[in-house]
């Protein structure tokens, strides 16, 4: 009794220690990660001149990006960033009356600013066909596995499934008057020795 109590106390203490240890390690991990993040940020995105070496590089992902979204119709940047000579002249023409622009020029101007039209961005993919095909394939594979299992894994079915046995079983059940009111035997016509119509 005394030893068991001591044993419980020891395990309790161990549990508490473990809990404290895990909490401490988690905290330490968080702290170091936060510190390292702060450190990295301080180095890479500061634009202060360091030792006369100039401005730090701005990473690509930090700049405004272009994306086609229904809920954000006018993205932060144009799609085409470097305009060709033709496009530049078109942009100049845009400053004048728009009625003088042909349909092709208007479409070209649109394509400079935007990658996909709304119709294109909302277009569905044909992915669902692959999904259905994949479903059928795996169901089929499973079917094959089941068939193989039936042949090579499962032993023979018990003799109680043979039709001869079943006949004798049904006769026995009728003799015993199983469920004679509303169930099994109620459906048997004992006079004519057949199932009730």
């Amino acid at each position: 009794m005394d030893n068991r109590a001591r044993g419980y106390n020891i395990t309790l203490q161990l549990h508490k220690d473990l809990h404290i240890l895990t909490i401490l390690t988690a905290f330490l991990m968080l702290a170091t990660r936060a510190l390292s993040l702060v450190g990295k940020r301080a180095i890479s995105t500061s634009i202060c001149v360091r030792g006369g070496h100039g401005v730090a590089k701005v990473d690509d992902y930090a700049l405004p990006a272009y994306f086609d979204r229904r809920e954000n119709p006018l993205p932060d940047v144009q799609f085409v960033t470097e305009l060709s000579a033709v496009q530049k002249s078109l942009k100049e023409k845009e400053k004048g009356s728009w009625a003088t622009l042909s349909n092709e020029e208007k479409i070209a101007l649109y394509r400079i600013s935007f990658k996909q039209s709304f119709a294109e961005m909302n277009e569905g993919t044909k992915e669902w066909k692959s999904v259905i095909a994949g479903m059928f394939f795996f169901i089929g594979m499973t079917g094959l596995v089941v068939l193989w299992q039936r042949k090579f894994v499962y032993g023979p079915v018990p003799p109680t499934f043979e039709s001869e046995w079943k006949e004798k079983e049904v006769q026995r059940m009728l003799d015993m008057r199983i469920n004679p009111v509303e169930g099994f035997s109620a459906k048997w016509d004992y006079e004519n020795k057949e199932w009730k119509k």
Partner: protein
Amino acid sequence: MFRPVVRLSTSGVRSLTRTRQCYSAPLASRCYSHAKVETDEEFDARWVTYFSKPDIDAWELKKGMNTLIGYDLVPEPKILDSALRACRRLNDLASAIRILEAVKDKSGPHKDIYPYLIQELQPTLIELGISTPEDLGMDIL
């Protein structure tokens, strides 16, 4: 045993009735917000004014348009008219066409909103020379 009851009935009754009066709080007051609700006209006027700024810049146009599309409504023709004129001031035909596309997309299953908008905006579209996405064949793939 009856004495405390008597005491209650003689001296306590008055205090009871007094406390009862205090407890009858007005049942009609509800805890609704007292913020002033903006009417539709005020909303429209605010947005028309926003896009009518003569020296509006490209960022403001984008921000305004993206915010407007974020609301659960299709903007009135007068707001869109103001936005299209802002595009003209900024020499940005592509954004004008994009705005029309966005508004059509915003109508969702209500297919009668967009034709109504185009009908209302027709004078502006002709004046500024803006083609609709349908004219340019951009509404189909």
